């Protein structure tokens, strides 16, 4: 859910609660005002009536239709027990003209005239509660609707304009690759938070790029520096072999030799990997696939013979890729090598090119490791095959610099590598 939707929802809920409470408060305050007002009117009217009665010493006729009050003598009440206070209360009075009960406020009070106690009840129509409620229940929801629309529209607009720097930064981050050369280019903004975000993001990505660059450079330099001592070890070993040695010594030298060789291959593979990642293979040309695959296959003749492998090649004469020839050869070699090495006796290797995809398929036991680790460095299937664990990492790196896609699947007891170029 979008941030703005969430905040809008909270605002709407808040508005709803505020308006709910507000309508109650408003109703009661209004009602209080109405009462206060009618009671004031009643009190004034009472004082007026009483002053007229005291002045004229006459009680008005009780059934005068022009009067808004009634006065009647209290017969069984003693003067001392007369209520001293005015009594205000609500009442309903039937209005014959519109045939309904209307809400009235009445004031009941007592007074004495010439020793005779009287009771006077004054009636005044009052603003009706139902009227008030009706008004509130129309105006407040209307206000709510206006607020909702206003809020939604504003937040839509806001998300398009004010949030623009945020979305730009987000897009750039999504597309950010640590090995890209250029720093992030974020548009200028006047909003403090976005400015801080941009600064942090730019600094973070910049630092990562720098670190990554240093790391890459370090690997390349380190691998490079390792070459010379390796060359020295290897040459000294060879010199030592020229001297008369016994079988035990030969075995030791042989082990040292294999280890050195392994180290040297590992080192050159790492060097190659960092060179690919450093984009040092820039010369591109059109590379015909068929002759290259056939050339590579000659290196695996013994392997095919030993394990009785059936090798099938189906590549159109004109199938070609546009890339650096050395990289194309390394990619194909690594994939074909895997197809031979991770095979079974009496198995098969099939190499096809169609729809701008190179299919390399071979029979073999299922993977012992999860497929997603295949292209990671030093994740190898088993130690018995003597591989370095860098072959597929190199394949992936080559695909990345060429913007190709490489995919692995295991179906019908065969491994399939697809390179879409």
């Amino acid at each position, binding site marked *: 859910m979008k941030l703005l939707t969430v905040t809008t929802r909270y605002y709407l809920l808040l508005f709803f609660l505020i308006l709910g409470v507000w309508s109650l408060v408003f109703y009661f305050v209004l009602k209080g005002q109405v009462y206060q007002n009618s009671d004031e009117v009643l009190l004034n009217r009472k004082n007026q009536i009483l002053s007229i009665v005291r002045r004229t010493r006459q009680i008005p006729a009780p059934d005068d239709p022009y009067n808004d009050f009634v006065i009647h003598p209290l017969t069984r009440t003693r003067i001392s027990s007369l209520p001293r206070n005015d009594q205000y209360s609500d009442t309903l009075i039937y209005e014959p003209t519109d045939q309904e009960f209307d809400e009235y406020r009445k004031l009941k009070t007592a007074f004495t005239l010439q020793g005779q106690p009287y009771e006077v009840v004054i009636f005044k129509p009052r603003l009706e509660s139902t009227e008030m409620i009706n008004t509130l229940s129309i105006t407040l929801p209307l206000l709510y609707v206006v607020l909702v629309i206003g809020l939604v529209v504003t937040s839509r607009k806001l998300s398009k304009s004010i949030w623009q720097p945020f979305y730009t930064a987000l897009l750039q981050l999504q597309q950010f690759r640590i090995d890209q050369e250029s720093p992030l280019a974020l548009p200028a903004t006047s909003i403090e938070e976005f400015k801080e975000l941009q600064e942090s993001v730019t600094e973070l990505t910049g630092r990562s790029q720098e670190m990554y660059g240093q790391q890459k450079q370090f690997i390349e330099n380190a691998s*490079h520096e390792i*070459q*010379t001592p*390796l*060359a*020295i*070890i*290897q*040459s*000294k*070993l*060879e*010199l030592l*072999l*020229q001297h008369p*040695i016994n*079988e035990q010594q*030969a*075995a030791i*030298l*042989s082990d040292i*030799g*294999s280890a*050195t*060789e*392994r180290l*040297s*291959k590992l080192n*050159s593979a790492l*060097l*190659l990997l960092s*060179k690919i990642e450093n984009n*040092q*293979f820039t*010369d591109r040309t059109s590379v015909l696939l068929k002759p290259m695959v056939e050339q*590579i296959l000659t*290196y*695996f003749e*013994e*392997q095919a013979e*030993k394990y009785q492998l059936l090798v099938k090649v189906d590549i159109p004469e004109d199938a070609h890729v546009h890339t650096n020839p*050395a990289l194309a050869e390394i990619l194909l*070699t690594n994939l074909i*090598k895997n197809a031979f*090495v991770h095979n079974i006796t009496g198995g098969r290797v099939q190499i096809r090119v169609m729809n701008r995809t190179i299919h390399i398929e071979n029979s073999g036991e299922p993977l012992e490791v999860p497929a997603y680790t295949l292209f990671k460095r030093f994740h190898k299937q088993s130690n018995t*095959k*003597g*591989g370095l664990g860098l072959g597929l990492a190199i394949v992936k790196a080559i695909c990345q610099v060429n913007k190709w896609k490489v995919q692995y699947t295991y179906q019908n007891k065969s491994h399939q590598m697809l390179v879409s170029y």
Partner: protein
Amino acid sequence: MKILIVEDEVPLLESMEAYLKNEHYLVERATNYQEGSFKIHLYEYDCILLDIGLPDGNGLTLLEELKACRQKAGILIISAKNSLDDKITGLDLGADDYLTKPFHLSELNARLDDVLRRKKFDTNTAIEIANLHIDLSRRTAKVEENNLNLTKKEFDILLHLVANKTRVVTKTSLAENLWGDHVDQVDSFDFLFAHIKNLKKKLSEANASIEIHNVYGVGYQLVEL
């Protein structure tokens, strides 16, 4: 034959020197650019082994100098950079071959042999050893008049062993010579063993007066009987 090695890593230089002296080459050394440049201008060599990464200058510049003073020497570049650019530039500037560190001394020797042969005997591309005759251009080997009918790989093995005759050539060096980085070590040693077995058989059947010895599983050695 006079060889100049320009290499700043003295232990490596000494290894090359020792190996090549045993092949009866006259070996001189230069451990930096200055010295290399000085010797190039002063003396004539049959071949120069040139390390590109020198502390006081680029070996490629030395190569240009060399060309300028019209030395006829063959040039074998040795580099720690397995970089194609350097290789191409080097070969463009007139180097005859290119070798990447780390390398096998036997490989260096074979390449050196090859460079010298190409420089000296452009027309005659044959090697005679004992009663064995190797035709390099047609890639065939004969014992007296009997053609050995070697496969491509058997021929390559024989050539490598002949270039380093009487020396122990390691299995890894031979395997690398045949397959480069293509096959993994375990299997390629088996294949190598099979090829060598066939080669031995063909040599003995043709009564060749050379023999391939297995040196305790470390490597192989070609000896004249």
